[in-house]
Every structure is written in C-alpha cells, then in structure tokens.
C-alpha cells in the first residue's frame, strides 16, 4: 500500500492525533517553565491546575504563579491557537482553490487583515470596543481575498501561479500601504511594526479566548465539510454531479478561512508560512483526506508556532519577531514546493 492511503481505507489515525495532542500539552508545560525565571514542569502543572480550579498554590512563591499564569500561559496558548488557526486556514484555502501553494500569507489575506487593522488604528476607529480591530482586520482580509481572486481569474479559471502572483502583488501593495500609515501615525509606530512583523508579547487571556474560538470554529467547519472538500478536488463538474454544492461550500469555507486568519492577525500580527508548511507536512504523513488533515494540521500548527515562539522568547539571547522567524524558515520551504510543482507540471 502506498503511504498516501487515508482514513477512507485505514481508519482515523487516532494514535497520531494522540501523539500530537500529548506533544502539544507537554510542550505547553515545558515552555511555561522556560525563560528568565526557570520553573520546573511539576511546578508549572501545579500552577496550571490551581489556576483552572481557582485556588492558590501552596509552597510556591507568588511570583511563580504570576509569571506562569498571567504572563507566559496567555502568550503560549495564544501562539498555539494562532498556529492551529492559521494551519486550518491553510488547509481550507489549499483545498478550495486546489492549490498547494495557497495559504493566508501567500494569498495576501494576512496583509489585508493587517492593513485593515492599521487603518482602523490610524483613524482611531473603536466603535465596537475590543472587537473593533478583529472586525476591521476581517473587512481588510475579505476585501483583499476578493481583489486577489478577481485579479487572478481569467475566463472564470484560477491558475496556480497566477493566484500566488496576484497574492504577492496585492500583499506588496498593502505592505507599502501599512508603511505609509506608519509614516502618518508617528505616535503608534511601535504598534504598526508589531502588525508587520508579528509578536506574541503581552498577550492576555482575552487574546487566548478570541484565537481559541476562531481556531476551533474553523476546525469544526473544516471537519463538517471535510468529505465535500475531498470531492471538490475532482473538479467542479464531477463534484456537482456527486451532490456537492461547490459554489456554496466554497463561499462558506473562504469566509471561514478568512475569519480565522483575520482574528489571528488582529491578535498577533502577520505570521507567514505556518498555513503553508503545516498542511504539507501533514499531507505527506497522512495523505490528502481533509477529515484527518484538518485536525492534524491544527495540532501540528500549534506545535510548530509554539516551538518557534519559545525559541524566540526563551532560547535566543534577544527576541526576534516571530513573523521574521517563520518567514526565514517558511520562505525556503515555499521555494522548494514551488520548484517541485513546476517540475511536476513540466
């Protein structure tokens, strides 16, 4: 049997999911103990258990509790949910557009979200309180997605390379736009740079809640439409003849992928390539079935981004912006996939 057999024949890869879940939980615990103030994993577990049960931890300094529960854990969990959310968005975009190079970053959706958020900041829009930035990010992301799709479509068809080229062009224009906003908004330069480079510094439990809600929602939708997405890989006519409403499914999933991207960008800035790398790795291990690919990518995306954030937070001598780190790793990976695809087509 080939390595690409999927759940249809082999069953759901529960063991692999269990391995990923255990790795993620272990990583959260280990990462929470890492940093300027080193705390042992058992103490971290005590603090987390106490935090969730609303009790004080006996025998540990208050600073330990504060550092783990109020400072590190919100950052760590936000990083994990953003990683998971972006990876699921990548799965959705790749499956809908039948394009293995599509992800929120290469499609320009992340830049659109960041532009929307920055624009709101510049004109001081805060009509909906803490939801204002995510909403503006969503508006920016949706608009960008439609512009990119419009730019890339010729005779109603989307070419793989044309789509990515359109995404890169629109993202470049938007980055220049963000740069211009930065120029206009002297006092808030720091915040705008944050959106350009991405960061998990100073995250709160509200950020955890927002990214968790968006990520889990996207995962649930991806699971619900998993088999339809598989069938859509056979093309429009075939999937329609198999009873899949491709046009409706496409719209729902595009909005869903954009929503989770916008929430992630609103909370953590532009973090590229997680949505590209993770589905690829998981597809290599599990095969293309979206019903196992989506949950596996969610968990693996969380693990990858958490590792990257832990490296920049607790291992490197000074903090490198997370978006820079993921781009440094993801950029060459993108080149590899692009080259491989070109060879396959040639």
């Amino acid at each position, binding site marked *: 049997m080939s390595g690409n057999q999927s759940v249809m024949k082999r069953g759901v890869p529960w063991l692999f999911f269990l391995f990923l879940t255990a790795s993620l939980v272990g990583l959260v615990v280990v990462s929470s103990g890492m940093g300027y103030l080193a705390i042992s994993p058992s103490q971290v577990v005590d603090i987390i258990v106490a935090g969730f049960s609303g009790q004080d931890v006996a025998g540990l300094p208050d600073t330990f509790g504060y550092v783990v529960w109020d400072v590190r854990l919100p950052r760590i969990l936000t990083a994990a949910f953003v990683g998971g959310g972006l990876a699921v968005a990548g799965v959705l975009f790749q499956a809908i557009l039948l394009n293995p190079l599509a992800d929120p970053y290469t499609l320009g959706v992340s830049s659109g979200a960041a532009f929307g958020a920055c624009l709101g900041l510049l004109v001081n829009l805060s009509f909906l309180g803490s939801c204002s930035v995510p909403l503006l990010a969503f508006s920016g992301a949706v608009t960008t997605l439609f512009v990119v799709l419009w730019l890339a479509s010729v005779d109603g068809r989307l070419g793989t390379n044309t789509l990515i080229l359109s995404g890169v062009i629109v993202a470049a224009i938007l980055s220049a736009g963000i740069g211009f906003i930065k120029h206009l908004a002297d006092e808030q330069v720091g915040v705008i740079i944050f959106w350009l480079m991405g960061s998990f510094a100073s995250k709160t439990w509200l950020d955890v809640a927002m990214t968790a809600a968006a990520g889990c929602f996207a995962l649930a939708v991806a699971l619900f439409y998993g088999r339809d997405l598989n069938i859509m*890989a056979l*093309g429009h006519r075939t999937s*329609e003849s198999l*009873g899949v409403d491709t046009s409706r499914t496409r719209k729902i999933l595009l909005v869903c992928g954009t929503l989770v991207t916008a929430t992630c960008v609103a909370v953590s800035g532009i973090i590229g390539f997680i949505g590209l790398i993770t589905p690829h790795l998981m597809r290599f291990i599990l095969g293309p079935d979206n019903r196992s690919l989506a949950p596996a990518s969610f968990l693996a995306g969380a693990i990858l981004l958490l590792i990257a954030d832990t490296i920049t937070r607790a291992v490197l001598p000074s903090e490198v912006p997370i978006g820079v780190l993921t781009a440094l790793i993801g950029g060459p990976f993108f080149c590899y996939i692009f080259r491989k695809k070109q060879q396959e087509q040639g």
Partner: protein
Amino acid sequence: MTLLEVDHLSFHYPGREVLHEISLVLESGKFYGLLGSNGSGKTTLLDLMIGNLRPTNGGVFLHGKPLPSYPRRKLAREMALIPQEFRAGFDFSVFEVVLMGRHPYIPRFGAPDEDDLTIVQEAMEAIGVAELADRPVTALSGGEKQRVIAARALAQNTPLLIMDEATANLDVLHTRQIFNVVKKRVKKESMTVIAAIHNLNQAAAFCDEIFLLKGGKIFARGLAEDILVPEKIFDVFGVRCRTGWNEFSGSHQVSLQWKMS
C-alpha cells in the same frame, strides 16, 4: 418507461444562444448517443440534464418532476457523469477516488459499509483499474485517469449515466471495454445512458437511438441506420461518407472520405 424528459429547453450565455427549443425523452434501459460537431451544444445539453446549469427557457424533468425540486444528494443517486476532462487537485489514491462515487449514499459523518466497498471493488474490476487501486491519481496517465473516473461513475450506481466524450483519451481496447461494460448494464440492469460521442462508428455500434445536434437544435433523431446516412452526415459535419451494414463489426458503419481532394 420515461426516465428523463427535456421539454422545449433553451439556453444562452450573454449574447449567444447555445441551445434552442430542445425536446427529447430518455426511456429506461436504452443507450442514447448525442452527436454533433464541435460547439454544437452537446456538453451544455448534458450539463443541463444533470442540473449543473439552469435552462434559460423550458425544463428538465426526472421521473416527471422538475430537476430543481430534487435535493442535490438525491439527484446524485439518480444520475452520474463521466466528464470529458478529469483533474485531481491532490494525490488521492485510485481506490479513494472510486469510493467518492458512494458519497451520495454515505451519511456526512458515516463510513462506507461492506456493500459500498463491494460496489467499488466491482466497478474497479469491471473497468480494469483494480490493480491501480493504491496508486495516487496524480501519477496516472490521461487514459488511466479517464478509466478511474469511469469506474467512479459506475460506483455511483445510478439509473442514468451521462457520458461526455468519456473515452476521448482512451485507446480502442479500453474504449471498447468501457462501452461494453456500460452496454451490459443497460441490458441487464435497465440503466439508461446518454453519451456525447465523436466517433460515428462507435455510436452506431452501441446506441439504440441517436440525437444529431446542429447549431443548438436537434437536426435529426432515430436509429443509427436512419440517422448516420451520407446526406445528414454531410449536412452536420461537412464530410462525405459511405454507410451501410458491416458484417465484421456487427453494426451499421460509416466510411469517411478522410483525404481532401
């Protein structure tokens, strides 16, 4: 028994009429051929029959009920399509692609049961792709892909099968195999087939009735020996020919004047 009826159906894209006032009836257990030159509207008519397109005027009725009244999944249990082109976005295995034919029968969060797996295996064996079962479809040749998609449509197990130049990429051996498998189902299981075909001899050998399309209208309809005659073929395709019964092929056949004088 009438399975599908096309009633005064017209279809146009903005500024261009593709089909005009088409009416036809498909009976259960018959093999129909749809012939015509390139751009005569064959694919559009098939897409209208399967509900992928909505007619501008007129309608399509399945079991006497208008097509839009059928939920999509129910419609997918009534008719299957073998398209002219097939591309797979990701490297699903051949088995997985053929199993997708069972999608209309499996609940959203359900798994295929023994019957589904048996039907899939039988479809793969009938078309001769069982030995490719574990290969990724992206690694197959054009002809192999075409056979996989035919097996997928057969696994859908529907009363009506729509073939849109389904054997365009195939050699004569595999073309013959697919048409014989389908014809057997027409005879034994009363399946109805409508196939857009370019090869006139193939149509003459397999079809119980032929619809000849010209300029978006039905130019002629009937038995192969009445329709595939020199005058009509010249009118539709602009090519001279001789026709008649051929003992060796066991059917009415067309000899085309290939060389242009």
